[in-house]
């Protein structure tokens, strides 16, 4: 070690020559994310009369490779909000840090009420819309689940284009095709939310996760599930899919080894 702290931990110039900074040159156009690399698949969520259930599996895929099998894609923000992330995992981690700094700022501020799910959805939707308007999108589809300002169940989505919508049930990615029709059988409209209790909703979301595991090639049987009610957030990050039955596989006709 020498007296130049800037050089500590770097290859010695007298041995390896001066560092080639051309790698860091900033001339030329700025490059942005044009496609997601490591990705998480569906997030599914459903409201019930006292709160919201949300679930996502623990897999981060690298193309078709199941690369990371212990990535938690549900993030508890506080006692009344959970955010579920689909899409690019590095952008998820960026948003995670952003939410951390937001939370710290909120806790130091003098405001009396904590940010609720509605507040957080507005915030995240604006972040997403700003980034798409800068042509530098965060490649995610988010579900924000929790309670609104009146302690009513709140569930809404925000995607990489800044599009937002709310619904009694929501699912991102493959789940929008496979899970949403199943969830809508029990929760077709806002009025039906009052007729569904926590147990039914949790069972429903777990059933949707099972269907997704059967048919989504980029999914996994380990998943996280969170229930948000007035009493707080109940988050389980290492659930295993139960009661799988592959009976149906032999009924499938039209592709595979059988002829007809």
């Amino acid at each position: 070690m020498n007296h130049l702290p800037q050089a500590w931990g770097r290859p010695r110039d007298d041995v390896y020559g001066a560092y080639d900074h051309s790698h860091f040159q900033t001339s030329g156009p700025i490059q942005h994310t044009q496609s997601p690399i490591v990705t998480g698949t569906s997030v599914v969520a459903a409201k019930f009369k006292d709160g919201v259930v949300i679930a996502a599996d623990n897999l981060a895929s690298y193309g078709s490779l199941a690369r990371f099998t212990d990535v938690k894609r549900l993030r508890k923000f506080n006692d009344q909000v959970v955010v579920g992330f689909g899409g690019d995992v590095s952008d998820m981690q960026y948003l995670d840090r952003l939410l951390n700094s937001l939370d710290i700022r909120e806790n130091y501020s003098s405001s009396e009420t904590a940010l609720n799910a509605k507040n957080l959805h507005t915030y995240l939707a604006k972040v997403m819309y700003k980034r798409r308007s800068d042509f530098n999108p965060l490649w995610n589809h988010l579900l924000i689940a929790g309670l609104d300002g009146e302690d009513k169940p709140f569930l809404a989505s925000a995607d990489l284009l800044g599009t937002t919508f709310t619904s009694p049930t929501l699912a991102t990615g493959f789940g929008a095709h496979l899970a949403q029709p199943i969830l809508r059988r029990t929760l077709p409209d806002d009025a039906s939310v009052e007729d569904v209790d926590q147990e039914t909703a949790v069972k429903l979301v777990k059933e949707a996760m099972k269907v997704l595991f059967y048919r989504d090639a980029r999914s996994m049987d380990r998943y996280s599930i969170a229930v948000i009610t007035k009493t707080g957030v109940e988050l389980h990050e290492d659930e295993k899919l139960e009661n799988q039955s592959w009976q149906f596989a032999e009924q499938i006709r039209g592709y595979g080894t059988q002829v007809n």
Partner: protein
Amino acid sequence: MASVFSGAPPQGGPGYSFTQTPRAAPSGERQHGFYPYTDNGGSTLGISGADFTILAGDTRSTSGYNINTRYAPKLFKIGGEGPDNKGAQIVLSVVGFAADGDALKERLDTIVKMYKYQHGKNMTVSACAQRLSHILYNKRFFPYYVHAILGGLDEEGKGALYSYDPVGSYEREQCRAAGAAASLIMPFLDNQVNFKNQYMPGSGTGHNLQARQAQPLPQNDVEELVRDAFTSAVERHIEVGDGLQMMIITRDGIAETFTPLKKD
């Protein structure tokens, strides 16, 4: 950078069979990875009368063949007090790219509220209409991808309706349909509101035919026209359905109604 990850199936479409997966990275600059717009479907419609204006829109939000939600309003009160726009006199409807629509609504709402705060009087519909045009034109080279319709009552208390294109061209009209099913609804409105292709009975044949003159319609007739227009559009357009939201602006304020539509 992109060449490193080319082993994954291409983004553009299905490529999951091994023979289809490209072995070499596509040569040359990759262009246009991110398209910042989408179409959320749906339709809106506005008709003005002698002392009222009606704006309507379906509540379905789509992306591709998916239904995002069955209740996403496309009608927004502009101005008034607080987040619920209490006492507002102007309604904006937006259809197209919903995220841009929300951003546009929020900007116009803020401007109209600030106008009241700074000048101590309500913004007139004509002033608001021109301001909206300027907002859209200011983003001429990265437009808000929406077809906006603005409704209210003018200084004489008559129904006022303004329609816009995404870059701010605008016009005051009697009626206008916008969005996915505009091409289905607008001809119906031409015939039923402006009496196009209607002639006075017994006025003769050929060049002697006298066109039936358009006149402002009573409120009930207009409400029924709107419902008929949407129930018909639902039959023929997959992006329209679920619910019909109407806002009726009269001198008494804004009345809001909701009518279910087919959910198929």
